[in-house]
């Protein structure tokens, strides 16, 4: 009897995960930083730097992948009638949680996508980060079971949903025209970039697929813990496997802990930082990429969250919180611990009646 295996291995989710893996490897080959073919956190940080909102010289570049992602989501959502405005239930809290998620990601040096890509490239420092990520998500599910909720949102008019795609187009115009007021790194990760067309195309494809598949790396682990459903988790697994194979094929695989590109060996802080990313993302309702997808299709809460992430990136580099290959600065450690505590307080105290 033919099993309906597609229930447990949904093709679109697997395809999207596989595309993350392929794009992650290929964009590195085309010029993006090593093990950073795709990274929502790093790319937001680079955009913030290019706009002069922080002055960390090595990480300033208008990453076209992000506006491409936004436009890809908007295309998919518009075509399938899912471009719908919704108000933010708690915009301030979404903003703060977004900022904390970003700071956690920059302390570790990567969002969940980059964590997966690092793992798939043999960077074992991402293993402990993955463990922390899972631990943070587990704590998040405990808080969800306790009744945590940011509150209810409501439908709203369409025009506000057009703000983000308009800004994305504006950003692409700046990418094309390169005006003098835009900062651009001459060395470091910000100076490494794939061709603009490749980056934009990758972002559009990823955005389109991620919108249709509802892919979320945090959601995959969360659903496995809550309802034992692997529906989204298979996307994460596909990303790891395909990226690993692609890296092997492209000669981008280096196995070990030491001397990994744009990574540190402060394992405890990788664990705690990604725990913050996992916990904060559960409280927000999705990983950084999912926040962009939701924001691009009109969700006000996610909109607040991604601006919190942009702000978090600026804060991280203006106040020397972000990790470097040399390690994690004291400020970063303090904020990660404080961020975890704040997430626990918020998660414990905010319950839906």
């Amino acid at each position, binding site marked *: *009897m*033919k*099993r*309906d295996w*597609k*229930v*447990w291995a*949904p093709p679109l989710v697997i395809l999207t995960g596989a595309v993350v893996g392929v794009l992650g490897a290929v964009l590195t080959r085309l010029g993006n930083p090593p093990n950073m073919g795709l990274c929502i956190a790093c790319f937001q940080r680079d955009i913030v730097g290019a706009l002069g909102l922080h002055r960390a010289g090595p990480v300033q570049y208008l990453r076209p992948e992000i506006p491409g992602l936004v436009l890809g989501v908007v295309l998919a959502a518009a*075509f*399938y*009638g*899912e471009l*719908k405005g919704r108000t933010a239930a708690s915009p301030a809290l979404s903003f703060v949680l977004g900022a904390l998620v970003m700071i956690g990601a920059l302390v570790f040096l990567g969002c969940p996508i980059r964590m997966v890509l690092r793992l798939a490239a043999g960077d074992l420092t991402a293993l402990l980060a993955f463990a922390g990520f899972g631990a943070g998500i587990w704590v998040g*599910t405990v808080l*969800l*079971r*306790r*009744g945590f909720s940011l509150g209810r949102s409501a439908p709203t008019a369409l025009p506000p949903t057009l703000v983000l795609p308009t800004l994305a187009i504006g950003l692409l115009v700046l990418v094309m025209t390169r005006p003098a007021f835009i900062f651009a790194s001459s060395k470091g990760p910000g100076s490494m970039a794939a061709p603009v067309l490749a980056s934009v195309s990758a972002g559009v494809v990823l955005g389109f697929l991620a919108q249709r598949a*509802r892919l*979320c790396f945090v*959601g995959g682990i969360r*659903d496995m813990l*809550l*309802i*034992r*459903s692997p*529906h*989204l988790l298979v996307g994460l697994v596909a990303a790891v496997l395909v990226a690993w194979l692609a890296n092997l094929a492209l000669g981008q695989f280096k196995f070990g802990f030491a001397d990994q590109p744009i990574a540190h060996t402060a394992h405890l802080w990788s664990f705690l930082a990604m725990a913050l990313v996992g916990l904060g993302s559960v409280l927000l*309702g999705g990983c950084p990429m999912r926040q962009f997808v939701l924001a691009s299709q009109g969700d006000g809460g996610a909109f607040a969250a991604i601006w919190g992430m942009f702000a978090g990136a600026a804060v991280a580099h203006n106040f020397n919180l972000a990790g470097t290959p040399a390690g994690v600065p004291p400020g970063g450690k303090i904020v990660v611990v404080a961020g975890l505590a704040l997430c626990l307080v918020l998660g414990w105290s905010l319950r*839906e009646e």
Partner: protein
Amino acid sequence: MVTGSSTDLLQLTQHCGCGAKLSAADLRDLLSTLPQPRDPALLIGPHTFDDAAVYRLSNDCLVVQTVDFFPPAASEPRTFGCIAAANALSDIYAMGGRPLTALALMCLPSGQVPLGLAREVIEGAVEKLAEVDVSLVGGHTLEDPQLKFGLSVMGVVEPGRMLTNAGAQPGDVVVLTKPIGTGLIITAAKAGLATQAHVQEANRSMLTLNRRAAQAALEAGARAATDVTGFGLLGHTWQLAKASGVRVRLRAGGVPLLDGALKFASMGLVPAGAYANRRSLQGRVTIAKDVALAWQDVLFDPQTSGGLLVCLPAGRSPSASEGLPAGAEQKFQEVVARQEGCCCAVVGRIEAGDEEPRLIVEP
């Protein structure tokens, strides 16, 4: 949050209630090679996907037979037993029949589930059967890694008062007698995210028998009916449309939902059965772009002990042009909507058309 009994049955199972059913696509595949029964006395058999089989014993005696069993649909054993019984009886009522006897089916992991707990499940079923004077006359038990329980029910139906999937006519109004979303609520309860209120409302709905709804449907001149269970509202609506050779235009906004169902769907806490139901209906249903994804998940949500989907002839009076005929509306609403856990919601209309997609879902 819901705190279950010392043994929360929902934590013993991966799939809950009718969400554990084989998908419609798999079922079609399973039955595809079986020969058609040739006994002329068999009036309704397995190939029309009706709610029960109907066999003519004599010109005035038609026997109705059905079976339903599944993993726990509730945390408490007694409630699980009651729901399983209500679900099994529903198939008889959906045929316009009267249940008479029931046989219990139980798969029991005796190392995990003590006999006392299993006894409570059966007692719950007996309690529900007693509401309608149905006797539990026997059954069968098996040692099995996964707890499952249900009933095979036998009843009778009067010739001329039999309801099937196959009688809907263009112009008929489609009415649903219970809100949907039990699969999502049970999944959320399993995850510890459903509140006591969510669970109580879902249980109330699942525990309500479809007997009065079926009687009211017959008295209102229903032409077709089915009960909504594991294939979800859309799956069972499609089956009715297919059997009747018609098209159904369903209005998503008119479908009553259990409180919390849409919220849990928006969170992505969608049971696997909903994805299976969606896949089974690929190419068979057209959903308008304005119907949000979370709403679609609820429409595909596998139901346990759901309501009846009834096709009533449309009214002739101007005031009833969009709803039920005046007399039928009054009777139907009086009987059905007053029952706890029930409603009387006009969710769609039957149109002519015997090709796919035969189910159109509008906002």
